């Protein structure tokens, strides 16, 4: 019985989620989503910048600080996919998002998942406190996760 309820609840949740994604959204909502996700991306850049300041030795903080920044990036990375509903493109507002996001949605999703995975690895490696290994993994996050996705799906300035 409990399993049945869970199954029904699960199905219901999926349907609601599907409806929410498919629901037509107003132009204003689209413009707001663009603004919202730009804040999210900006936040990630700020965390990456702070990690860089630590690795450069510009601030006297250690791997524990880097871990907290990485946790923040991980949390934000899980929100990325939802921030790019169909229609939140350059027709809806000022955005550098390329239309390829929606024509190559699977690749875009895979890139977002890659960011999560690589950031999780960064969190792991901060536990060792080895700054050289942390730098190596930070390069991978910046290049393979941020960089590759930006090259593919973000217009130049």
């Amino acid at each position, binding site marked *: 019985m409990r399993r049945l309820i869970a199954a029904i609840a699960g199905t219901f949740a999926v349907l609601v989620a599907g409806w929410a994604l498919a629901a037509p959204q107003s132009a204003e909502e689209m413009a707001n989503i663009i603004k919202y996700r730009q804040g999210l991306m900006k936040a*990630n*850049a*700020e*965390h*990456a*910048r*702070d990690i*860089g300041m*630590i*690795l*450069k*030795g*510009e601030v*006297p*903080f*250690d791997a524990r600080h880097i871990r907290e920044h990485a946790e923040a990036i991980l949390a934000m990375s899980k929100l990325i996919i939802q921030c790019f509903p169909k229609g939140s493109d350059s027709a809806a507002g000022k955005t550098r998002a*390329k*239309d*390829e996001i929606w024509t190559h949605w699977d690749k875009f999703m895979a890139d977002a998942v890659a960011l999560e995975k690589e950031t999780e690895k960064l969190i792991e490696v901060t536990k060792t406190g080895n*700054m*050289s290994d*942390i*730098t*190596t993994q*930070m*390069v991978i996050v*910046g*290049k393979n996760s*941020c*960089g590759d996705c*930006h*090259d593919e799906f973000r*217009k*130049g*300035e």
Partner: protein
Amino acid sequence: MRRGLKSPPGALGRLLLAATLAAAAPLAAALAAGEMPLGAVARGAYVFAAAGCKECHTAKGGKPLAGGRALKTPFGTYYTPNITPDPATGIGKWTAADLKRALRYGIAPDGTHFFPVFPYPSFTFMTDADVDDLYAYLMSVPPVVQRNHRHVIDFPFGFRFLMLGWNRLFLKTGPYVPDPARSAEWNRGAYLVIALGHCGECHSPRGFFGQLKLNAALSGNAAGPEGGSVPNITPDPETGIGKWSDKDITYLLETGQTPDGDDVGDGMQEVVDASTSKLTPADRAAIAVYLKSLPPIRHQVRKSETKG
């Protein structure tokens, strides 16, 4: 304060240098045969990385250094040649003197002119010793049989003899002469930026004939390669990198991350991967010293959309 900085780039730099050298390891057979001294190949591997040869001479998904990468320019599309030591399709028959002539004067062993899409106007400043080491390294990589793709050049730029005039007008030949009034570090940085790194090939604006505008060197190029704009890297505080610290520069060259936490983006990322991340921390620091010493040039590179 230095504690945090010193250990990671040092260790990472050593690791990357080791990786660069390891890439040359399968060539031990040629060395064992006594064909060339190991020192030259190892040093040449470093010159090769600093000069970023691999980026252009390897097609996307292609065999390393077998060429075939298309370079679109305002004069047409050029295809990079095979620089592996295959005697028929690569440079296997070249002598060290041939390589020197190609890099210093832009002239092929058969006497024809290269087009300056091959950055010999920068490589001309390489020292003889670096060219010799590079030759030793190039002759030690695995040969690949791959024919060169014909260039597709707009009329009338395809006539190679035209380069004779172009070179007369625009080519200033090297090698680099150190400035005795400057420190050894500054001179090393200048050499890395001007000669090996050939930074100006993308970061300097070009004139009507595609020549580098040397009076505006490194001040950015709105019409950069592959349709992108390339930023001003002179120390102008508003339009260049005047607000960056030395560490901001070395960290970018090592990691590909900008001082504002962004990634450098497509073209420069390739440079970081193939070249600047493989340099020693001392060489990256020398580049920073040199760049910061340049006269600041106010030049706002027009924001343009990269091709999508």
